[in-house]
């Protein structure tokens, strides 16, 4: 019980932090020197030159949306991809279809200077069509933490907010250094990341995911480090690998058992170390699945969770 209230506190703090970040941004643009040209190279190697920092932006991916807000540029956001949901005030911004059903019409209607999109939805035809409509397309494609830093710097340059971008990445690096020192695992403990619950078929995050990278940073072993990317796995493999910690990213919709309770109640799972110790962390808000600034928060939550578990086990 105590543990959960700690997490909710953390969640509220995280929410407040991003709110203030966005709130602070409202005054920021006035201070920026206007009329200055900007040239960036996006993450697919295309060079994009703007006469002045972007003032109207549509961000299709949730991570880019979070980066924009964290840089204090919420007020430049005129449209968002339909899955962008963090911080919560972006929900007031018009949504456009994204991913496989990216709608060029909806984007053009919003008259942005710049469209931020991921590699998933991007095609040469779409880019050409948007450039014809006078919209500059910038593609971000972060595959690891270094990629996230690059994306933050890229978006910072685009907005004329290099300083804020640098501060943000510094801040993240500092948090990661902190949690690394705090947990300092020796690779003997394992963690199982559950991306989709048993009812829907078990999915986990293997090698090459942010969850895997952060587990490695903390000195934990990803129980499924022999799998690439996200994949459906056998239930019996989880039982066989007997993880010390379980991190689930299932959402809770307010009815039925919570994701943590559901895992604790699974038949045959009662002998797992993580279940016996009730060492289950539920990250409900995509902290560890989006290549954005909140990865640091997610890492911090994992570190706090592991510290609390260790304390409990020692007692």
């Amino acid at each position, binding site marked *: 019980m105590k543990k959960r209230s700690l997490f909710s506190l953390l969640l509220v703090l995280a929410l407040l932090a991003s709110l203030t970040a966005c709130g602070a941004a409202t005054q920021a643009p006035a201070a920026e020197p206007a009329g200055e040209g900007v040239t960036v190279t996006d993450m697919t190697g295309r060079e994009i030159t703007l006469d002045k920092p972007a003032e109207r932006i549509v961000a299709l991916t949730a991570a880019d949306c979070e980066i924009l807000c964290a840089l204090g540029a919420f007020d430049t956001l005129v449209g968002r991809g339909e899955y962008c949901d963090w911080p919560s005030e972006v929900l007031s911004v018009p949504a456009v279809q994204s991913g496989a059903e990216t709608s060029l019409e909806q984007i053009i209607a919003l008259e942005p200077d710049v469209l931020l999109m991921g590699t998933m939805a991007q095609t040469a035809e779409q880019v050409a069509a948007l450039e014809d409509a006078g919209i500059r397309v910038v593609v971000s494609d972060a595959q690891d933490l270094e990629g996230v830093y690059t994306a933050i710097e890229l978006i910072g340059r685009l907005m004329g907010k290099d300083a804020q971008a640098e501060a943000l990445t510094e801040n993240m690096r500092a948090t990661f250094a902190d949690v690394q020192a705090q947990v300092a695992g020796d690779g003997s403990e394992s963690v199982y990341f559950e991306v989709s619950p048993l009812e829907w078929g*078990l999915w986990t995050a293997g090698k090459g995911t942010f969850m895997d990278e952060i587990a490695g940073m903390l000195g934990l072993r990803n129980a*499924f480090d022999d799998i690439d990317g996200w994949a*459906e796995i*056998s239930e019996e493999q989880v039982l066989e690998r007997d993880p010390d910690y379980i991190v689930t990213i299932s959402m809770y919709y307010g009815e039925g058992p919570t994701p943590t309770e559901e895992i604790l109640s699974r038949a045959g799972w009662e002998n797992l170390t993580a279940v016996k110790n009730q060492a289950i962390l539920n990250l409900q808000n995509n902290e560890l699945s989006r290549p954005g600034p909140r990865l640091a928060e997610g890492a911090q939550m994992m570190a706090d969770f592991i510290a609390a578990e260790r304390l409990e086990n020692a007692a």
Partner: protein
Amino acid sequence: MRLDRKIHREGETSLSLFLYPREGFGPGTYALMSLVTAGVLLLCVCLGSVSIPLREVLAVFSAALRGAAPATSSASILLSVRLPRTLCVALTGASLSLCGASMQGLLKNPLADGSTLGVSYGASLGAVVSIAFGVTIPGLPFAGTVGMAMLFAFLSLLLILTLAYRLDSSLATGTIILIGVIFSMFVTSVLSLVITFASDKVRQITFWTMGSLSGSSYANAALLLGALLLFGGVLLSHARELNAFAIGEDNARSVGVDVRRVKLTVMIAVSALIGVCVSIGGSIAFVGLVAPHMVRLLIGPNHKRLLSASLFGGASFLMLCDLCARLLFSPRELPIGVVTSFLGAILFVIIFTRTGRARA
């Protein structure tokens, strides 16, 4: 091809028995089929993405039978994961195969099956609607979903057959499959729509279109068994009527079958059984098509044998498919429908060209 019939004949001496041989299986054949199915079940429980030595498997089961299951990961894997899942797979395979065989007889159409006619997608839609809009029966949390799946399966079957009769009263193979395909596409799109608007409550679309029996429990197996005993029993008791329908609906009426009553009874039993299977394991395609086909090639079309042999054949077939789904890319797992559709489609083409050649 007709091994069984030849064996029967060798033992027969009197002329009357030659003219009027036993149509169903003898107890020996049933014992053999049960033994083979039990063997496949054992194989599927012994093998998995985690390898457990046979000695340990036996130790765990003998301990469990004495009521003292050890608290090891092997015991958890065997007793809580593999056994309930394999039981559910076997019962689902048996049920779907029985439904397929019955529909193929009733409609005199070797391509009829819950998946080709779109009945299982109808059942999926019923289940999804009941979850999304919270249709429940008080006190029985799962009954709302199962009931709605059954109801929608029945309505789908009714709609498809009514349309088919309207277009072509002889119910030609092509017409009914065409209507099934159109209906499936329509229902799948409605299904996607409902899931889009209730994605927080309903399982994702792949479950409802590809099926999955991972995470099955003993309670699921008990429900499947109950449904199979009840509705499967109804189907098995209509073997002679299905023979008459398989020769032709006119012929069934002519020999004195109550055509309307039998058709309705078989349709209700088939829909109910498919509804239960779908609400537990999603819609698993091709099982009801392939298993009865293979069985028919081995023992002929007489439903007195076909229905019961399809039960065992379907159970074994789906258990082996599930084994492939679990083993092929271990530790990854495939949706079971991927395996059945893949194997099923290949086998289906082979069988179809063969029977076509035999007829020509």
